[in-house]
């Protein structure tokens, strides 16, 4: 337990004021991989979307899988941190910012994928409703347009949600550095003084934002699920999709948060702050979500099997016994069979245990999205038009690069601002221990 305010401040500012030299080769390596992904994208843009493995009838592949996956990961943060803030859980204080950062970066990465996957990405601005000489407006009936509005709202909201509590910490940094960094942090702290009025307003604003961001987060993944549920594609046209996707998003989000926290803890020496009880509590949350995920999976599978409609059952057996069976059972293993004992048994719910479970869940949830998209598309109604899908090196490179990009952004962020909120921890010192 960190004792004094001075200690907290010293420990948490250290990664920013005196960044570890060991991080530099890691940053360089990650940057190179991100660069590889970027080059692959440029190559695709120049040569054509055909360098990806998509084909008829599987017109959506890795890119949309990644889109859904990263938007799901983005639910880590803001949603968890907002819920914990509103419920005033004391153990939230060290983890809220780690979580909110995931949201912003995962959203930025996720929002890139619809652009990457477009046939003509340079015309993507036609999704924005703006008056034009053509007299044309976007189609508000299209789920993609709902995505456009929802993701933009969520991005703005979560960015504000991240930046608001960052203001006092930037003011703190401003007072501790000189030169250009002083100028930078002065700018970021927006002239923060720390009057009681400002503190009061900040807390009021954070409270309101926490209330606002929860329905936005829920709506975002609901709408992502409607991208699928609105079309008459077997196994997509399902009313269960919205809650199923939201639950899955929170599920993978918590897993991503735990993974990020494990790395932060060891690399920035935050053992005193990201304490085992944080992992224990998040592990319990992850367990609940794992059960909820399995419940939804069961409900979806059971109704399809029982309904026995010809196009749907074709996709059903394709994933259960057909060529996608390996992926399907790996998914069930990663999302339920493995995490369940790891998280349910108190002895195993350690930092290592939750980390292992989280890695499994992130892999499992990526496969889940893939299994939602590809088998359904490959086996639509007319058997003559059935097909397959194989990703190419372009898709694989871009996918790998986004994971590196996430790590890179996170690493850079943790070197620019304290990744654990200093003032919130200090305020927590005064709180009676419950």
């Amino acid at each position: 337990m960190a004792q004094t305010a001075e200690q907290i401040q010293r420990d948490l500012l250290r990664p920013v004021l005196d960044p570890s030299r060991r991080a530099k080769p890691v940053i360089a390596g990650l940057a190179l991989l991100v660069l590889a992904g970027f080059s692959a994208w440029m190559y695709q843009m120049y040569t054509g979307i055909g360098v990806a493995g998509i084909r008829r009838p599987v017109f959506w592949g890795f890119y949309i899988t990644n889109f859904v996956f990263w938007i799901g990961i983005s639910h880590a943060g803001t949603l968890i941190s907002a819920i914990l803030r509103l419920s005033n859980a004391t153990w939230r204080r060290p983890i809220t910012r780690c979580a909110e950062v995931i949201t912003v970066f995962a959203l930025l990465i996720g929002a890139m994928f619809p652009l990457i996957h477009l046939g003509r990405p340079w015309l993507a601005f036609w999704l924005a409703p703006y008056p034009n000489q053509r007299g044309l407006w976007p189609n508000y009936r299209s789920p993609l347009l709902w995505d456009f509005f929802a993701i933009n709202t969520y991005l703005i909201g979560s960015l504000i949600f991240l930046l608001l509590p960052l203001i006092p910490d930037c003011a703190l940094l401003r007072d501790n550095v000189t030169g250009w960094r002083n100028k930078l942090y002065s700018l970021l702290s927006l002239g923060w003084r720390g009057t009681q009025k400002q503190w009061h307003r900040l807390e009021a604003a954070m409270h309101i934002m926490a209330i606002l961001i929860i329905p936005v987060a829920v709506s975002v993944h609901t709408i992502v699920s409607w991208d699928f549920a609105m079309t008459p594609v077997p196994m997509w046209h399902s009313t269960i999709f919205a809650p199923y996707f939201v639950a899955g998003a929170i599920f993978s989000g918590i897993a991503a948060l735990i993974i990020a926290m494990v790395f932060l803890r060891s690399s920035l020496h935050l053992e005193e702050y990201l304490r085992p009880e944080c992992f224990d509590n998040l592990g319990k949350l992850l367990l609940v979500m794992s059960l909820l995920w399995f419940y939804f999976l069961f409900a979806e599978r059971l109704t399809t099997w029982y309904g026995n409609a010809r196009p749907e059952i074709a996709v059903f057996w394709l994933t259960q016994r057909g060529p996608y069976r390996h992926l399907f059972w790996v998914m069930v293993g990663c999302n339920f069979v493995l995490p369940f004992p790891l998280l349910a048994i108190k002895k195993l719910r350690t930092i290592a245990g939750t980390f292992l479970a989280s890695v499994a869940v992130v892999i499992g949830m990526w496969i889940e999205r893939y299994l939602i998209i590809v088998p359904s598309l490959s086996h639509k109604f007319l058997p003559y038009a059935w097909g397959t899908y194989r990703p190419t090196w372009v898709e694989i490179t871009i996918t790998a690069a986004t994971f590196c990009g996430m790590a890179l952004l996170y690493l850079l962020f943790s070197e620019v601002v304290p990744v654990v909120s200093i003032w919130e921890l200090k305020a927590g010192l005064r709180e009676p221990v419950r």
Partner: protein
Amino acid sequence: MSSARGIFVLCSEPDRTERAVNALLSAGLPMSDIIVISSEPLERYRFAELKKVRMPWLVVCGAVLGGMGGFLLTSLTQKGLAIRTGGMPVLTLWTDGIVTYELTMLGAILTTIVVFLVTARLVFRNHLPYDPQVSQGKVMVGIASAPDALRDKIAEMFKAIGEIRE
């Protein structure tokens, strides 16, 4: 103006802060004029109690505006386009509801940040004095402007509490 300079004291612990605030109150200053600057929220103290903010109401107004904007955007532009699609009606209230909902939330979020920045007097320059020692845990107490006579009196009282900043 020399007659309206402020005076502040740097306190090292919360009890002294309370003493400084009490000193100012005893000098006949209203609570609303007293400024307490700290590096963390001091909610538990009497001087931190502020009257309720109207922020939630403004946010609701922003939400209503955003929602109305969203609804008008969807309905008017669809009327203007009047394209027949798939035998569906020109105005589709179910789907317009989604855009309306998102813009309602966007309106609320943007209002929150604007109201926060304005009421907390951020971005827009404020001339409050500041001392980097606040970042080391000190608390600054004082008033932004005081006539000379009053300031001398306050300075006298502050001497016992801590370092004085003008």
